[in-house]
């Protein structure tokens, strides 16, 4: 069966607003939706970042003098939830996925454009709802994990708003996942084989499989939790005969894959950026594909390594330790592939490349602490300490957020037709890299020495290290200034980039920059070797 798409598209063009206004409309254009995701996510990043600054200001002194303890709990809950569900997940998946995937598969739009717009427009209201919950009766206080019985005993209205908001965001994520799977598997240009796709497509396919399989379980769990809060049932309430560990299992069945949902797309994006700026083909394409799929499969069976101290039986500890350690294998393969891609390449040092290299360094460090945390004896020692906080931020900030910035520097010329200022970009990288490592590296020491996480007050012996960490956080906050300055200055009077400033071979660069509404002037090009650098280009 075929569908008429031509007439629909004409109608679409005439009905859609033009210029800046289209970014505030229910646009069906995947490029507009991608930018909507990115800008919306970045605004929430600023909110979550301010909350993080508040946390670090509070922790600069051992007593809770900057804010009361319950406000501290609200701030850390909102910080975690906003950064995960409103910044990293929507941006690495929604923003870059929507912008790039249709180009990569040689299509004019996503498989389900309307569903795509719905998925985006679920995000701003649920994010605003989450933030305004602070003004109701206090926001949720139980952390982004919302473990019962804590989430049942803290003030209810904030927790219920938190649940509703996360349910909406989960729905948005599932709709996005369905769309990506259909687009990558079904909407490929005739003649384009799966094993010729750019690596980001594989990363998004794996991520979307994880989203579709695991997010609904979180939704179901949160519905049960809301029953516990509102209807006084006892699913997770031990007083009423319930079982808190069941919540933890169900929650981590989503939330461990969620880490891969945040970091697999980042792997894909780095695999796009490195070959372009090193002028070399991506090393080990096939192993990269299999390691992504390996991570998807393994990622679904390692969740209980978050629960080694939850009375988990020994056989379960053993299984989940081994499974978790195995994840280091595909991840290590990818790491060596990236290094081998750079090896002997003609590397240009620019902001995109610097952020990608920063990602590789940070990520390998976070990965090593991750393998350490998978070992039960060590995990029991540092469980719920700052060691976990440090590890986690090395993965999601040092990993995903560095890649987001790298990608913005790489694809900004594609979106705007202008180049970003390299000097400001390198300044941005330097402050971010130093600030990030200054903020989180000392936290490993804090954790090893037993400073618990998620508390506003701590033992005075940890003060100096905490202050160093706070200075790092301050630098991270400052680092957004050159970045924002760069974006605004470059949009206004940046240098013209031309259609393909990096001389890249991936399909999105084979059209004009910024691209036309339907992506290609004529037929979509067939790119059989997206990474064919260092070979003579055969002109038509």
């Amino acid at each position, binding site marked *: 069966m075929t569908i008429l*798409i031509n007439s629909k598209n004409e109608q679409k063009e005439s009905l859609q607003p033009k210029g800046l206004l289209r970014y505030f409309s229910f646009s069906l254009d995947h490029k507009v939706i991608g930018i909507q995701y990115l800008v919306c996510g970045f605004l929430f990043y600023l909110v979550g970042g301010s909350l993080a600054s508040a946390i670090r200001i509070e922790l600069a002194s051992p007593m809770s003098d900057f804010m009361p303890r319950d406000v501290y709990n609200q701030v850390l809950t909102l910080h975690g939830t906003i950064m995960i569900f409103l910044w990293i997940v929507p941006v690495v998946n929604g923003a870059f996925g929507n912008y790039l995937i249709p180009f990569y598969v040689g299509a004019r739009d996503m498989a389900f454009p309307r569903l795509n717009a719905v998925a985006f427009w679920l995000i701003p209201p649920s994010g605003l709802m989450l933030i305004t919950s602070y003004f109701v009766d206090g926001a949720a206080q139980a952390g982004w994990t919302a473990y019962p019985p804590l989430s049942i005993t803290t003030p209810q209205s904030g927790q219920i708003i938190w649940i509703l908001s996360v349910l909406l965001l989960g729905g948005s994520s599932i709709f996005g996942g369905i769309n990506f799977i*259909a687009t990558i*598997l079904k909407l490929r240009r005739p003649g384009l084989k799966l094993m010729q796709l750019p690596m980001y497509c594989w990363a998004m396919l794996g991520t979307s499989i994880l989203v579709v*399989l695991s997010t*609904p*379980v979180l939704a179901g769990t949160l519905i049960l939790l809301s029953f516990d809060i509102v209807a006084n049932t006892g699913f997770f309430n031990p007083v009423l*005969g319930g079982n808190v560990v*069941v919540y933890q299992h169900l929650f981590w069945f989503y939330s461990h894959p969620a880490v891969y949902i945040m970091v697999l797309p980042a792997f894909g994006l780095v695999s796009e950026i490195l070959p372009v700026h090193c002028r070399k083909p991506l090393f080990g394409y096939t192993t990269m594909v299999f390691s992504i799929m390996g991570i998807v499969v393994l990622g679904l069976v390692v969740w209980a390594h978050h629960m080694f101290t939850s009375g988990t039986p020994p056989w379960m500890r053993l299984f989940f330790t081994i499974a978790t350690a195995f994840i280091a294998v595909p991840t290590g393969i990818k790491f060596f592939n990236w290094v081998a891609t750079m090896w002997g390449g003609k590397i240009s040092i620019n902001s995109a490349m610097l952020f990608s290299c920063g990602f590789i360094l940070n990520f390998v460090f976070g990965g090593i602490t991750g393998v350490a945390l998978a070992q039960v004896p060590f995990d029991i020692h540092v469980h719920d300490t700052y060691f976990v906080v440090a590890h986690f931020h090395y993965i999601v900030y040092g990993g995903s957020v560095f890649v987001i910035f790298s990608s913005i520097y790489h694809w900004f010329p594609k979106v705007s037709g202008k180049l970003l200022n390299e000097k400001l970009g390198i300044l941005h990288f330097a402050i971010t890299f130093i600030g990030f490592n200054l903020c989180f590296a000392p936290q490993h020491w804090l954790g090893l020495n037993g400073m618990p996480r998620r508390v506003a007050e701590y033992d005075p012996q940890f003060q100096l290290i905490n202050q160093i960490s706070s200075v790092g956080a301050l630098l991270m906050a400052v680092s957004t200034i050159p970045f924002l300055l760069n974006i605004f200055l470059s949009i206004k009077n940046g240098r013209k980039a031309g259609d393909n400033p990096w001389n890249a071979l991936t399909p999105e660069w084979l059209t004009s920059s910024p691209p036309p509404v339907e992506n290609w002037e004529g037929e979509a090009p067939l790119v059989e070797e997206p990474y064919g650098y260092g070979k003579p280009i055969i002109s038509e």
Partner: protein
Amino acid sequence: MTSIEKSSEIKKSLEIEEPHEDFRMFGLITFLIADGMTFAGFFAAYLTYKAVNPLPEGAIYELELPIPTLNTILLLVSSATFHKAGKALANKKNIDSQKWLLFTAFLGVTFLVCQLFEYFHLPFSLTDNLFASTFYALTGFHGLHVTLGTLMIFIISWQTRSNGGIISYKNKFPLEAVELYWHFVDGIWVVLFIILYLL
């Protein structure tokens, strides 16, 4: 297909710049996998509770089987009648198709009425104990699916009317989509029936 229709088809395909396959069904299947995972989470929670959380004295019930068995039969028959509706539509018999759809919806409504009847005659209520809560959560979440399905069947049966309805043998997708959803909901019920009532 008559020759006139054929030629109009060809004309149409010439107007289409780049026709592509219809993958709405593919998207629906992906969604149903996701929906199935929600149920899988509920079942996993229920089975874990059963294995590790002993219930207090007097909280162990023998569930009455007649009504749920009747409900199982109702849903299985409704799957068959829905299939009949699809076949009738493929044979261009809109009126027959509409009749089968309405019969299916009737079976769905009967299922819901039976379930409500069962709810009102159970010896426990939502917050009595862990089993009671899980029972209502599972059957309630499934009942929500049946309710939505029944509403959708009413809508498509209206759209299948012969004068002016948008569903015909040329545009079968809405009917096929709801049919797939309905079979899915039936399948979930069979699993639920086995796990909740028989085990």
